[in-house]
């Protein structure tokens, strides 16, 4: 028989030690929690009473007849429709601007990326102050430059609150998208750009016909990242509007939080979490599949 010493070389021990902790942590805190969440969503557990009676799809049936859940789901869709394309377009525009061989490119990169480095809680408080109707910097600025007639009630406005929330999200994410797109643009062979220039392509044509069509991969990556964030955004909206006015900016994670931690409806909240998980999987699985196939 081969001795243990030969099997367990130093390399293998260190590999095991390095892998074991993250694997155990991931299993306990992600996969077991996901499974536990699904189990709870089929029970009547209220968080304190040790009752896990099987209730089948009862919580899910309740979900799809509950007006608050349906409103939150719709708000999530509206958020995706404004925030995802908004961030992609802004990110692309910033990347194109930086691609003009500007001086001090790194300084601009840093400026654009800075919002993304802030925590969402900080961003939430910052913009809540900026949007303040009475003393907020936006209204004060508009007033001081003689554009007082543009004064706005921003996130207090029932019809526009979600839009102004999306503006904050776009502000925070477009710098990150810019980085992804800039890397994509820089990976396009110089020869193609030169050839197009020789053929007389204008700046606009160059981007429209040569560069942007080759950015499919970064656009797809950015799209998936933004979509996943839009589905699970919580902290920023919780701080910025708390879901208000009324329910106008309440999205699924906020509804889930209220159900679980304020009302102690743990199983109902778990059902919302499961729906969110499924929605995110619908986005992520095709992405992973495509990425995996590309690598193969």
């Amino acid at each position, binding site marked *: 028989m*081969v001795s*243990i010493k*030969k*099997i*367990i070389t130093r390399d*293998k021990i260190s590999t*095991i*030690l390095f*892998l*074991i*902790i993250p694997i*155990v942590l991931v299993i306990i805190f992600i996969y077991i929690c996901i499974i536990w969440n699904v189990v709870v969503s089929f029970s009547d557990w*209220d*968080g*304190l*009473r*040790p009752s896990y009676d099987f209730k089948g799809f009862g919580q899910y049936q309740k979900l799809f007849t509950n007006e*608050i859940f349906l409103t939150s789901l719709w708000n999530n869709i509206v958020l995706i429709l404004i925030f995802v394309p908004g961030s992609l377009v802004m990110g692309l525009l910033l990347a194109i601007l930086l691609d003009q061989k500007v001086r001090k490119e790194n300084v601009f990169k840093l400026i654009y990326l800075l919002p993304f480095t802030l925590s969402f809680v900080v961003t939430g408080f910052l913009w*809540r102050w900026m*949007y*303040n*109707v*009475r003393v*907020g910097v936006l209204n004060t600025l508009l007033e001081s430059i003689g554009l007082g007639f543009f004064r706005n*009630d921003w*996130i*207090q406005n*029932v019809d526009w609150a979600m839009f102004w929330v999306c503006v904050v999200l776009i502000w925070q994410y477009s710098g990150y998208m810019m980085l992804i797109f800039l890397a994509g643009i820089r990976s396009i062979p110089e020869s193609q750009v030169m050839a197009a220039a020789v053929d007389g392509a204008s700046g606009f044509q160059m981007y429209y016909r040569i560069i942007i069509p080759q950015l499919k991969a970064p656009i797809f990556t950015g799209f998936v990242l933004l979509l996943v964030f839009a589905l699970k955004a919580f902290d920023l909206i919780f701080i910025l509007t*708390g*879901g*208000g*006015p*009324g*329910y*106008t900016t*309440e999205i699924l994670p906020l509804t889930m939080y*209220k159900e679980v*931690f*304020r*009302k*102690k*409806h743990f199983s109902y909240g778990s059902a919302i979490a499961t729906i969110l998980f499924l929605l995110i999987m619908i986005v992520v699985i095709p992405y992973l599949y495509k990425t995996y196939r590309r690598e193969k």
Partner: protein
Amino acid sequence: MDPKKQSIIIGLIAVIATAGIVGGVMYAILAPSEEGEADVLEIYHWWTSGGEAAAIGALVDVFEGLYPGTTVKQRAISGGSGITMIPIITALVLAGEAPDAFQMHAGYEGIAYYEADLLEDINDIWTDNNLEAVIPDVVQSMCQFEGDYYMVPVNIHRSNVVWYNLKELEAVGVDPKTLTNWTAFFDACFEFEDANPGKDAIALGHAWTQAHLFEQILASQGIDVYENWINGLITNTTDADISAALDILTTFMSYTNDDFDSLSWDEATDLLIQDNSVFNIMGDWANGEFLVANSVYDDDYGTIAVPGTGNMYGLVVDAFQHPAGVANPENSDRWLEVVASKEGQDAFNPLKGSISARTDSNLTLYGPYHDWTGADFASVTYMFPSVVHGSGAPQSFSSELNAVINAFCTGAANKATTAAAIANLAADNIADYTTVWALD
């Protein structure tokens, strides 16, 4: 070596190592500490700001004076209404690590713990200390579940208070004592705005303050209406009393500041202190804002009951309890006795800005505002538990009410939709209404 065998051996080593690491960590977390055996009282609360911290400190001083050998460990977790503390307590209670007592609002806020058998009944503390003789009936009900006592109250804040700017009101020739109904109140608002173009008569704040306001307006419709509401009996989507309350709220909103939804409750009160408005409806924790601004009661500002609630006292009550399976059960009981005692309450409440939950407290220790409200506390006909502050209705109802009223105040929902939403909230959560309140 056969790669399969090799993988199996590596796998086995991985499992053993994992078990070792997880076991070690779990032991470190769960092993009983030496501390647990000492004479300790551990309490959790969310009183962290200046006056609040001083108040709980004074209460702890009373306890330590009586039990000098016991070490009191205060775990103060900031976050109004226990927004941060409650999830932590829930986790501790579930893990069997409940502290010896923790702060909660009396009434429905404790029901989840009661239903899960996580609270000990404390009937003997109530009997031994003769508390029923000195604590009002409604407050007694707020401390009970199914006829047994599970909490003792530490203080009472009043919710149905109108704060007014005395100088501004005198300038328009209005006597605050005449504002006993909504018509007179709105006439005064009109007078103020007429005399002060560009100013709003009423200062209002963001979401929960609007629900707080609605609660007071509903009480002004009569104690029977309020009682029906908190008993979950208003389930008609076109209920006339709810409709009347929303009409009053509509008129009210026409006199408020436009930026109400971006102001916190204290920023709204500050509008009144800064002479930018003349009225503010808020619980009596607002008194601290006037004191900080060096405003003098009956000189710079004053108070009346919310119109139509002159014979009522809106209750916001903080309480402590004896959780099941605590490490120091005897100290837990001792703490509850101190909390409920006259000495303890008179040490705590003057600093906290609330009044004692006992009718025999020494009112000379309190300020001029408390002279007024203390006299009312002893003489009003009715008391009603606040819904917005966790006591009067199930959490499934109260936590949604803020958004429903906020939608109405901001114009996101009309009167019919709001009336229907309030009724449906009660109907949809009717199973959670386990307390039957008797307020009259």
